C-alpha cells in the first residue's frame, strides 16, 4: 500500500484502494478491503453500501458535492480526484464539503497530487494527500509549511488577515 501524507506532513501507512469507474455495462465490484468508490455509484447503491465502514467515495473534479446532501457524515473517507494538477475544481469541492456541508471526517486528495499543491489543498480542507508515487514524500512536510499565514479565510481559518489585524 502506498503511504499517505497528513496535514502536518507526517506519513501514514494506508490501506484504502481507489476503485475506478467500471466500463459501461459492467457493474461495480468493490474488492474485499477498504475501498473508495465513485460517489454517484455509492448514492445509486445506497441501500447496499450504507453503514459500511470499509466503503468510502471519491469525487471526480466535475462532480458536485451537493449531491451527497445530509448523507455526507455517514462516510468516514471522501476523496477528491485531481485528474491533472492544473485542474483546480477540487479546491472548491473541498471547501464546499467542509464549510457548506459540514463534513467532519477524512478528506483525501487523490490523482495528480504533487508537492507544490499540498499547501492549497490543506487550506481547502483536505487532511490527507495521496502524493503521486514518483514524488519525494519526505519533502511533503516542507512544502506544506512554507507559509505561516494567509490573507484569506478558508477552511483552515475563519479569520482573514484583515480581521486578525483588527484584533
Amino acid at each position, binding site marked *: 500500500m502506498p503511504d499517505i501524507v497528513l496535514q502536518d506532513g507526517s506519513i501514514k501507512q494506508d490501506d484504502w484502494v481507489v476503485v475506478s469507474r467500471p466500463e459501461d455495462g459492467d457493474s461495480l465490484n468493490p474488492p474485499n478491503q477498504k475501498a473508495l468508490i465513485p460517489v454517484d455509484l455509492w448514492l445509486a447503491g445506497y441501500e447496499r453500501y450504507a453503514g459500511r465502514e470499509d466503503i468510502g467515495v471519491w469525487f471526480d473534479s466535475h462532480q458536485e458535492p451537493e449531491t451527497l446532501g445530509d448523507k455526507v457524515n455517514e462516510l468516514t473517507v471522501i476523496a477528491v480526484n485531481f485528474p491533472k494538477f492544473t485542474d483546480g475544481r477540487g479546491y472548491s469541492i473541498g471547501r464546499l464539503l467542509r464549510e457548506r456541508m459540514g463534513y467532519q471526517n477524512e478528506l483525501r486528495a487523490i490523482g495528480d497530487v504533487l508537492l507544490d499543491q499540498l*499547501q492549497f489543498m490543506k487550506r481547502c480542507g483536505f487532511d490527507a494527500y495521496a502524493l503521486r508515487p514518483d514524488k519525494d514524500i519526505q519533502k511533503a512536510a516542507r512544502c506544506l509549511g512554507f507559509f505561516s499565514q494567509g490573507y484569506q479565510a478558508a477552511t483552515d481559518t475563519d479569520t482573514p488577515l484583515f480581521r486578525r*489585524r*483588527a484584533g
Partner: protein
Amino acid sequence: MYVYDEHDRQIAAERVAQFRDQTDRALAGELAEEEFLPLRLQNGLYVQRLAPMLRIAVPYGMMRSNQVRRLARISRDYDKGYAHFTTRQNVQLNWPNLEDVPDILAELAEVEMHANQTSGNCIRNTTTDQFAGVQEDEITDPRPYCEIIRQWSTFHPEFAFLPRKFKVAVNASEKTDRAAIQVHDIGLQIVRNESGELGFRVHVGGGLGRTPMVAPVIREFLPELDLLTYMEAVLRVYNRYGRRDNKFKARIKILVKALTPEGFAEKVEAEWAHIKDSPTKLTREAIDRIKGYFTEPDYESLENASDLLARQRFENRAFDQWLTHNVDTHKKTGYAIVNLTIKETGTPPGDVTDRQMEQIADLADEYSFGEIRVTHQQNVVLADVRQDRLFELWQAIVPMGFGTANLNTLTDVICCPGGDYCALANAKSIPVAEAIQRRFDDLDYLYDLGNIDLNISGCMNACGHHHVGNIGVLGVDKKGEEFYQISLGGSSHHDASIGKILGPSFAREAMPDVISTIINVYVDKRTEEETFLDTYRRIGIDPFKERVYA
C-alpha cells in the same frame, strides 16, 4: 501609498523562500517542465524566444521612488540595463537568468515588491485609473479597494488553478474610464446608490483575445462591504463551471455568454447567498485601515499659477503644446498631473533604461512626493506637481526623452513587445509602431487629428489591446510571413466597443501608407468637432474600406 506591515513582510519573505525551493527542484530535475510551468508563471516567469522574461507586479500601477531605483539596479545587475512598462501597469525584465530569479525576488521583497500572480491561470494584478486620488470627478479613491483585492487574491488557495487567467480592474471616475474595466474579467465601477451609499456596479466577462467581448453588468449595485464575498462567489462559479477542455474557450466571458449574463448572475447570487455573511465580509474598520494608507500628501495651500503659466506658454510654444497635451487638471488648486511619455520614436513603446528609471525616481522625489504611476498606455505619471514648477520640470524632462507632447495622439501607440521578444507572437509589432511614428512626426498635424488610440498586438493574445484601439493592428502569420490586419472603431473607455475588421491584411512595408489613407478619410469626412471615433461611428467602415482597398 500602501506600506507593508509585519504580516505582509512575512508572507513576502516566505514566498521568496518557497520560489527558491521550487527553482532548485526544477533545476535539479525533480520537477518536470510542465510541473514547473504553472509555478513559474504564477511568479511572472516566462521562458521566451531569446531568454526568460520576468514580469514584476506593480499593484495598480503605483510605485515609490526607492522601488523604481531598485528596479533600475536590478535591470543593471541581472539584465541588460533596461525594462519594459506593460499595458497592465506592470514592469518586465527581458533577459534575466532563471537561476537568478530567486535573488531578484529577494531584492524586490526588500522594497515591498514581488512578481506574484503576474501570469498563469490565477487572479492577476488589479489595475485602476492612473489618476486615482488626484482627479476632480472621482467618487472615491479606488486604490484602497485595489489593495484589498490584492491581499484577498494573493495565494488564494481555492483559485490558484482557474481555467484561465483572471483580470480585475476598478474605476472610480464618473465621466472617464482610463482603466478599461469593460474589457476585464471583472470590471468594478465605483458608484453611489440613491441613498448615497458607496458600492460597485459589477461587470463580468469582458476581454480581448480571440473572442473580444464588452463585459455585461451582472449586478447594478454591490455594497462596499460585500466586495470580497461577491468576488469569491463569481470566482467559485467560474472555477467550478468554466470550460477547461479548450484553452480558447476557458475565459469567464465564454461561460457568461453560454449561461447568458442573467443566467450567470443567478448562479452567482445563489452562491453568494451562502457566503454573504461569512468572515470574508469586509468590515468598516478593515476598509478604513487600508484607506488610511492612501491619504493625501502634504499639499501646500496654493493658488492656481494661471498668470505665470500663461506667460510661459506665450514665450515658449513647445511648452505650450506640452502643457495642452501632457498635463492634466488636478483636484487641488495650484497642482497639476504630469504625464511623462515613454514613446520616443526609435525605441520600443514602454521601454526604459536603468538610467531613465533613476531619472524618473529623481523627478518624483523632486517634484511629486516621491511617487510614480505606470499607466496602461505604457507612460508614467507624476501625479502631484506644483503648477509653478511645471516649466522647470518640462525643461528637465525634454532632454531625457519624456517630454514628447504626443499623449493620446496617434503616435502615443500602445504596443506589445511582439515578435522581437515574445515567443507567442506571430509578427513583430515594434517596427510597425516605429514606422508609423516616423510617418507622423509633425506634432501640429497630430494635434489637428486629435485623440486617436492606435493599439498594436503581435498576436491574438492581444497584449497590445488592438480590439479596443480606435485603430487596431494585429500581427498575423501567413505561411511564415508577417502580415497585419486592421480593425477600426474600438474603444476602451466608458463607451467601450470592439473594433471591426477592415478587410484583408497588409505587408509591414505597406502599414504607414495604409494608416495615412485611413487618417485621410477621417480628415475628409469629419465635421468640426468630431474625433476619429465619432466620425467612424457616424459614417461606418465602408468609406475607409473603399479608399484603403481602392
